[in-house]
């Protein structure tokens, strides 16, 4: 299945070890840099945090690509196999956007949610739980 000779393939493997090790070290370096362990002043600069975060994510994705394509030999498989395994993961992009949006929205409404959860449930007309009175409901009186 591999189109390389044994000696070539061996060389690719050890090159892979060096690449993964170096990328990991670079990631850790930048992570510590962004947290202000190497240059103290960077600790309070949000721009640096975002840039470093983005860089680390890109490097991790490269590591993932390298492991799948070289170590798991996806490069040498039929294109259909690669697509059938990799394409479904595209769904995760939406999951990430949706759930992170949900998370940050929750952060902004924590006090409100807490307040509404503490409203006592007694009485017919008092508001119950988290559904507020102005929420649209089906009016069955016709």
């Amino acid at each position, binding site marked *: 299945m591999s189109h390389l000779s044994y000696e070539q393939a061996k060389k690719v493997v050890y090159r892979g070890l060096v690449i993964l090790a170096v990328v990991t070290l670079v990631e850790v370096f930048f*992570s510590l840099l962004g947290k202000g362990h190497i240059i103290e002043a960077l600790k309070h600069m949000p721009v640096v945090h975002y840039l470093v975060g983005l860089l680390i994510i890109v490097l991790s994705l490269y590591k993932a690509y390298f492991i799948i394509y070289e170590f798991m030999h996806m490069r040498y498989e039929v294109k259909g196999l690669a697509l059938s395994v990799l394409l479904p993961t595209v769904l995760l992009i939406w999951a990430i956007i949706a759930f992170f949006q949900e998370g940050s929205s929750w952060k902004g409404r924590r006090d409100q949610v807490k307040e509404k959860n503490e409203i006592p449930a007694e009485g017919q007309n008092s508001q119950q739980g988290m559904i507020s009175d102005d929420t649209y409901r089906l009016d069955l009186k016709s």
Partner: protein
Amino acid sequence: MATTDTVMEHHDVQNGDAWSGGQAPFRASYGKLMMWYFLLSDAFTFAGFLIAYGALRFSSPTWPVPDFVFSTAPFGIHHAPLIFVTIMSFLLIISSVTMVRAVQEGHRENKNGVVFWMLMTILGGAGFLSCQAWEWTNLIGAEHMSVTTNPFGTHTEDGVYLTADGKDSDEVFHAGSSYLMHKAGAGHGDEHAEEGHAAADYSPGDHPGHFVDEKGFIHRKFRVTEGPDAGMVKMEEFGPKAFGALFFFITGFHGFHVFSGVVFLFIIMINAASGLYVKRKNEYEMVEKIGLYWHFVDLVWVFVFLVFYLL
């Protein structure tokens, strides 16, 4: 010599059309194909966990800083942020590389090579598991983190700590800096000699400089020095609860994958050594399949490492 029950049937790829059978889809064997789809489903499980981590982290006003939480290593090393987990990552990367070597020796039908490199892979996996066991022991035993209690908190205001008799000390902190709440009467691994650290009264209840809750956690008091609450005396609170649960659950689930991987690697190594796969004459396909699984475990660690330790 060859008997029918040990020799795998070779698929006759060129024979007949696609619907008459005998053709391997995607020119991959059944086992390998199904391993790929199992790994895809497993990837979704892990993605679900990690996205839940992200969503909860986004939803919390503060979050423990990983380079503060994970800064201890065996042999009494402290304040060494991320060093220990980097070593753990290297162990997994190296064991991934030795696994590729085992698969390559399998393609050459070199039995001794396969067994040797699989053994190296098992050692790497066992080393990783040992490191994780130490990390968990330290977090639970020395730093008192549990699924429901997270003693790693973050300051949201600038302030100054109070001394044991309730006066301002010279320990100043800024918003965003982290603290670890200690437990009265228990060591916490980091035996620094703070002023009055041992001498003060740590019985449960309110004290001038700190509050000790019924579980024995010491909430140090501090005076806020900036912002709308300036001048007020507050005390340290627990960090977001979800952190402990997410950490133990996700790294535990990954560790369980590593453990199962080591078990299966061991079984397949024994089989290889016994000559079972020599008889199958399929270039040690079983080694290739467990190899796919093992690389996947390494792949997941790339992302666990990313979200828990680097970001």
